[in-house]
């Protein structure tokens, strides 16, 4: 983990309100890990967490959706600007632990971390990505089978990705996206007893496990998404009503 100022190599709008940010830097990163980013001085007060989307020899990249103040400021970044970056953070997953036939189920911007999972295990992975309307972030995505759904019907299956996803065939499922989607995935995986990993989200302050504001309820008590997660076992997480 290190705290550095990285140079922007690219910051491009790849779909409406969806940007790809490429920063110069050499890192060892596991899929599911994230970085705290900050391209501003005072406001907003806190830095923002973003999952590793892709990485190369000399760069790391992120895929982000513009939601509020922080991402609006990121969206203004130009080449050569610098961003303060803390990371890599979180547990992430040892790829060696990922065996057999794997399904990655992502919804919306939740696909961002899954891209890097796919890259690492492309040989034995099927992908299920659901979008609202526009499809993004799948450039250079390699996998055995790619299933796409859009709520608008613009591309692929018209409806939710969970409508067409069946865990039965898989040895492992990894999911990231809106809470409602992840709950649904958890439910179906329970029925088929398929091992599941969830990538949880939470508002973060320190990002490194020191402040306890980012907790998620688990069977073993409150756990820190930033340190004990963001990758949690499906059966571990307790979803509130």
């Amino acid at each position, binding site marked *: 983990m290190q705290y550095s100022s990285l140079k922007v190599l690219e910051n491009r709008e790849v779909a409406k309100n969806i940007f790809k940010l490429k920063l110069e830097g050499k890192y060892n990163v596991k899929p599911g890990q994230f970085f705290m980013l900050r391209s501003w001085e005072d*406001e*907003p*007060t806190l830095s923002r967490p973003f999952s590793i989307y892709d990485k190369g020899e000399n760069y790391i990249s992120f895929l982000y959706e513009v939601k509020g103040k922080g991402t609006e400021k990121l969206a203004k970044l130009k080449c050569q600007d610098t961003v303060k970056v*803390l990371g890599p953070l979180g547990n992430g997953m040892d790829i060696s632990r990922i065996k057999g036939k794997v399904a990655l189920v992502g919804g919306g911007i939740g696909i961002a971390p899954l891209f890097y999972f796919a890259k690492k295990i492309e040989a034995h992975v099927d992908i299920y990505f659901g979008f609202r309307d526009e499809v993004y972030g799948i450039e250079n995505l390699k996998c055995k089978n790619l299933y796409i759904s859009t709520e608008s019907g613009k591309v692929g299956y018209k409806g939710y990705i969970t409508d067409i996803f069946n865990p039965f065939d898989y040895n492992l499922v990894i999911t990231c996206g809106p809470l409602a989607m992840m709950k649904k995935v958890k439910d179906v995986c329970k029925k088929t007893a398929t091992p599941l990993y969830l990538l949880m989200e939470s*508002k973060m302050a320190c*990002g*490194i*496990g*020191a402040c306890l*504001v980012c907790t998620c309820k688990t069977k073993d008590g409150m756990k820190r998404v930033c340190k004990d997660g963001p990758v949690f076992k499906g059966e571990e997480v307790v979803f509130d009503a």
Partner: protein
Amino acid sequence: MLNISLWGKTFKNPVVAASGTFGFSREYNEIYDVSILGGIVTKGLTLNKREGNEGIRCFETSSGMLNSVGLQNPGIDYFIENELPFMKTLNTIIIANLGGGSIEEYVQGAEKLDKSDVDIIELNISCPNVKEGGVNFGIKSNIAREVVKEVRRVVKKPLVVKLSPDAEDIVDMAVTCVEEGADGVSLVNTFKAMAIDIYKKRPVFKNVFAGLSGPAIKPIALRMVYEVSKAVNVPIMGIGGIKDYKDAIEFIMAGASLVQVGTANFINPFACRDIINGIENFLKEEGINSINEIIGVI
């Protein structure tokens, strides 16, 4: 030039990491060597393990943040066994922050900490008193008096009382704590505050209220430190929105011997380190030989 001797201990500089923002220091120690700090205050500890609050625990506000962690901690025994040994390997002063929901709980916790290897105990009286239906111990001086008196009885180590800015009269509160034997006071804790989700038409936090910290509160915290420093003659730890060396020096000039840095660690993980360096440069540039010369110069 940054050394400060207090309570028979030497702080290598006046910068201390504030309770609840620095965990048990392991995490920040992965980013930089936290032994450079003057001191480190632990996450608030209670006699028994606590899970803390459910629901959202953090919300941002203009130049500040609200938190509602609710004293999640592994309990004092666990701390002494599993966290303190690591902290003691650090070359800095370790301050245990003690919380509680009743006087008995405070006293029992204090007894354990007093027997442990921590250097100093910081008594956090801004906890809701579970026996009195959640009323905060830190609001009325006469209620605080009872806690401090009882805890003092069992604590031989230096005892610092951490004050809440929601106290009815912060100066009277400080004076009361000193009367009951506090060796120092630290202030301020977070301000009772709130936020509303206008779309859901309900408070953002399950507990309705949460604690405000960060640069937003600095001007009020500074005023309180100044007022308290005029009224008591024990050392003061100044806390509240300190984000850079200039803020730290303001608190020191207002009367704080030490400063604690909380939320700023989230804004800049190097905040404490940068503040230490900044203070040193300031003293050099202004031709001041020792930090002690400017404590309370205002």
